[in-house]
């Protein structure tokens, strides 16, 4: 009997727990070494862009939270801000502070879920319970404020649906979180098993990341200082320094997210101070039923938890957009797998894919 060397085609997903939704990776393997990777997406395609062309802006607003259900606030903010920019509406300081506080809380909850899920991918189950416990506090707060745990639909054109309440709950959360983060770091950051699974794995060189349009934490963990928040109108009154580290590997992306949560806590503290000083809401609400964007093109971008997200709207002066396009960070991360996984081993593939923090509804739109 002769043994011939052949390669094996392996379908990872679409129902694999570590694909965080419905992603199918078609891997070609030589032993355990990956020769090629072909992502197959579209299992969750809902036609968000086509839907927009047949809906008025207020009809469309509740659906945009579903683009990334772990960080819905960011997409509401994108749509609201673009409409506000087109109609020349300015936001009051209190509304800006409310939005920053909620965006950052949402970012923390998203990162917490990622830490848990990432560690679960690597085989450590207990951190998942710890991070979900803290995330639950944030979700409870959002439920109290907006009535929703994930898809908040809280921002509206010109302001927010109602004034912020239960600020002491947020204070409680940001008081507890730093201690809990220290706890996570004690059991995760220098854990030898975790280090051997992530250190030096999935190294992304900065110029390759830029060429593949990788943004957000993944880019900053490769040492490139690009954070949309630095130039964002919302964050103008806030002191903020982007988290940039130079390790470039999966471990760096974990560390960067821990540091980002700490940075977010600082931003929330500043927002709460503004909220205490600035008591009047001063909203510039417009009648949502009569919104018509002037003829033209509008573009806005924001730093979402999974990379830079942007929206493009072309309007012909009607109450519905002529064309609406979303740019999401995860889409580029998934396409980057094609070159990133080649030459890696199958058991590292999950760790590398997990470290990019991909969410599938954002990929499929």
């Amino acid at each position, binding site marked *: 009997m002769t043994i011939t060397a052949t390669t094996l085609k392996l379908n990872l997903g679409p129902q694999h727990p570590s694909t965080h939704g419905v992603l199918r990776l078609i891997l070609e393997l030589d032993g355990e070494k990956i020769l090629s990777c072909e992502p197959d997406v579209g299992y969750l395609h809902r036609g968000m862009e086509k839907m927009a062309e047949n809906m008025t802006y207020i009809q469309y607003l509740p659906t945009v939270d579903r683009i990334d259900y772990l960080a819905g606030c960011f997409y509401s903010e994108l749509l609201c801000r673009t409409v506000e920019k087109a109609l020349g509406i300015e936001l009051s300081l209190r509304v800006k502070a409310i939005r920053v506080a909620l965006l950052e809380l949402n970012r923390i909850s998203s990162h917490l879920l990622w830490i848990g899920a990432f560690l679960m991918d690597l085989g450590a189950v207990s951190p998942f319970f710890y991070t979900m416990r803290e995330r639950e506090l944030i979700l409870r707060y959002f439920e109290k404020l907006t009535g929703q745990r994930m898809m908040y639909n809280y921002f509206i054109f010109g302001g927010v649906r109602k004034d912020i309440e239960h600020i002491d709950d947020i204070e409680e959360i940001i008081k507890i979180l730093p201690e809990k983060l220290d706890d996570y770091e004690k059991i995760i950051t220098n854990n030898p098993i975790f280090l051997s699974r992530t250190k030096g794995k999935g190294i992304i060189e900065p*110029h390759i990341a830029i060429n593949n349009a990788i943004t957000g934490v993944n880019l900053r963990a490769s040492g490139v200082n690009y954070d949309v928040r630095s130039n964002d109108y919302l964050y103008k009154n806030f002191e903020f320094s982007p988290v940039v580290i130079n390790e470039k590997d999966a471990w760096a992306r974990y560390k960067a997210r821990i540091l980002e949560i700490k940075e977010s806590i600082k931003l929330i503290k500043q927002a709460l101070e503004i909220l205490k000083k600035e008591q009047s809401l001063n909203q510039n609400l417009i009648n949502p039923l009569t919104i018509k964007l002037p003829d033209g093109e509008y573009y806005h971008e924001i730093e979402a938890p999974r990379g830079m997200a942007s929206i493009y709207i072309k309007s012909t002066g009607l109450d519905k957009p002529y064309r609406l396009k979303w740019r999401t960070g995860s*889409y580029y991360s998934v396409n980057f797998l094609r070159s990133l996984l080649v030459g890696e081993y199958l058991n590292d593939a999950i760790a590398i894919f997990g470290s990019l923090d991909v969410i599938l509804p954002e990929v499929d739109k």
Partner: protein
Amino acid sequence: MNTDELQKFINECKLDGNKICVEKNLHETLDFLLNNYSFDMLKSITCIDLSNGQFELIYNLYSTENEEDAVISIKITHEAESIADLFESAKADENEIYDMFGIKFIGNENLKRLYMPEDWDGYPLRKDYIQDDTRLAWNDNNSNNA
């Protein structure tokens, strides 16, 4: 074209807001901007059906070195030059545009159905995709009924 000619070509392009509208030489223009002005990140490519048989492609470029944006726009009919050899990320964008608008990118060999099933007919984000449903606002002929 050499560097001076390209610089002149770009300078003479029409501006629409902050958009630089090129009529041809898309690949050369982006190559020039990448190498001479370090516009090294292609944030996204947006395609718009202009409903007159033309499509507009908008390229959002960013320079991580100078922290600057550049927007390039080109009008095409059904084919465009691929820039996948300059920007890896363009492969993803071009594939999405092929799936949704049916535009062929010459030089990109890997165009295939992405969100839609492989045997799907038509290109959903085109304005003439559905013609017989009077409830749909994107259908020009029926917009009064919407």
